[in-house]
């Protein structure tokens, strides 16, 4: 006898298919687990180059004094810290993350760095709790691949941007050279979980991070998704041979 109930919609969690309703909780589990060692994780995954990738995003964002910036999935607040300095006292930088542990870590780091008065918001990127047209710049660094409904998140970013505002997405992507891609695969699936086990005693979380990178849309697909969400002048900047890509798009209307 067949089950008359419609099948539950699923999405990917790394290489696993899980019910859509479960992904958020599972991602939360990973980040609860790695929050205190997040910087170490980034350094391990990128061999330290993530600092240069973030610097590029900061330069490309070109935030000016008085502007309002929203940093989604802000993690430990590396981008928020610079944006708060650039926006200055007349502007605003908001630290936002869906994960309370990460948000707490980010706030603590900002205070340690002497950056005070930065509002923190625990928010889901798919339905941001901000008024329409309230930011000049929205950024999301290494966060979009963990969002369950990426299209909804992109529409949400578009909604909160002022006309003329820009979105910058920094995310792991697809290497452009096939030979390099093979080496990168070996690194991601063999070396990275091993390092996770040895350094953080958390192999599963690091395996998920490597798998989630492979399941994330490639450069052209993400560009198309941004255009469908309403962004114009979308440009892709490949860094480190496409290991990471920065997508920038504008809300023009």
């Amino acid at each position, binding site marked *: 006898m067949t089950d008359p109930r419609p099948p539950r919609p699923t999405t990917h969690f790394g290489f696993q298919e899980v019910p859509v309703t479960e992904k958020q909780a599972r991602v939360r589990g990973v980040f609860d687990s790695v929050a205190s060692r997040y910087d170490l994780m980034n350094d391990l995954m990128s061999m330290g180059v993530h600092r240069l990738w973030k610097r590029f995003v900061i330069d*490309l964002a*070109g935030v*000016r004094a008085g502007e309002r910036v929203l940093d989604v999935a802000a993690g430990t607040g590396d981008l928020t810290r610079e944006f708060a300095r650039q926006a200055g006292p007349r502007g605003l930088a908001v630290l936002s993350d869906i994960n309370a542990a990460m948000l707490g870590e980010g706030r603590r780091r900002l205070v340690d760095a002497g950056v005070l008065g930065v509002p923190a918001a625990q928010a889901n990127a798919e339905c941001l709790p901000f008024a329409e047209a309230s930011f*000049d710049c929205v950024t999301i660094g290494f966060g979009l691949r963990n969002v369950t409904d990426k299209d909804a998140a992109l529409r949400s970013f578009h909604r909160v941007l002022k006309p003329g505002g820009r979105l910058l997405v920094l995310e792991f992507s697809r290497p452009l050279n096939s030979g390099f891609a093979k080496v990168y695969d070996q690194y991601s699936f063999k070396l990275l979980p091993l390092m996770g086990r040895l350094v953080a005693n958390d192999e599963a979380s690091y395996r998920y991070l490597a798998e989630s990178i492979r399941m994330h849309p490639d450069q052209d697909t993400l560009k198309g998704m941004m255009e469908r969400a309403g962004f114009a*002048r979308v*440009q892709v900047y*490949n860094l480190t041979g496409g290991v990471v890509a920065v997508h920038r798009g*504008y809300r023009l209307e």
Partner: protein
Amino acid sequence: MTPPLLCAGLEIALNRTLALEPAVLAQCQRLSGRRIELCAETLGWTLSLEFHAAGVRVLPVAEGEPDVRLRGSPAELIGLGLRQLRGEPSLGGLRVEGDVELLQRFQRMLAEARLDPEEWLAPLIGDTPAHRLAQGLRGLFGWGRQSLSTLGLDTAEYLREETRDLARAADVEDWMQAVETLREDADRLEARLRRLEQARA
């Protein structure tokens, strides 16, 4: 296609310069949506500069017809950039199509936004000390440039005359003339051999 990172580098540099002068940024806002296109002909690269309220965005693909287009070799475009840095508005051998006034206006904006150390120092240490310090710095950099130039000339002379690692200009010219004579002689010999072969046939 133009490397996107080249566009990003140019955009970041231009926006940092333009942001030095608030009045220039206000002009960017007034020019919002207008575009200047740079075409490096031999490479087939296009850099599309579009004005917006926060400066310019530089993209490798152009949407629609620009307001003004500059065409030239990559060397000519680099030359334009270097002249702009020296504050010389000349376009060199570049060909211009479209609204020349927009181009001249952009050049004036870049010139206005150039870093003036006196202006930066005055609010910190006062007008007169700022003027003296800026003069001192100019003198120091001028002396540095002069010293570097002299050092360069002396080194080049040593390598040419003493160690003979570099050739003198006159020697290079003689050698090039000799190569040219040899090439002409070889051409004449080849033509003579061809005639002899035809005569035998």
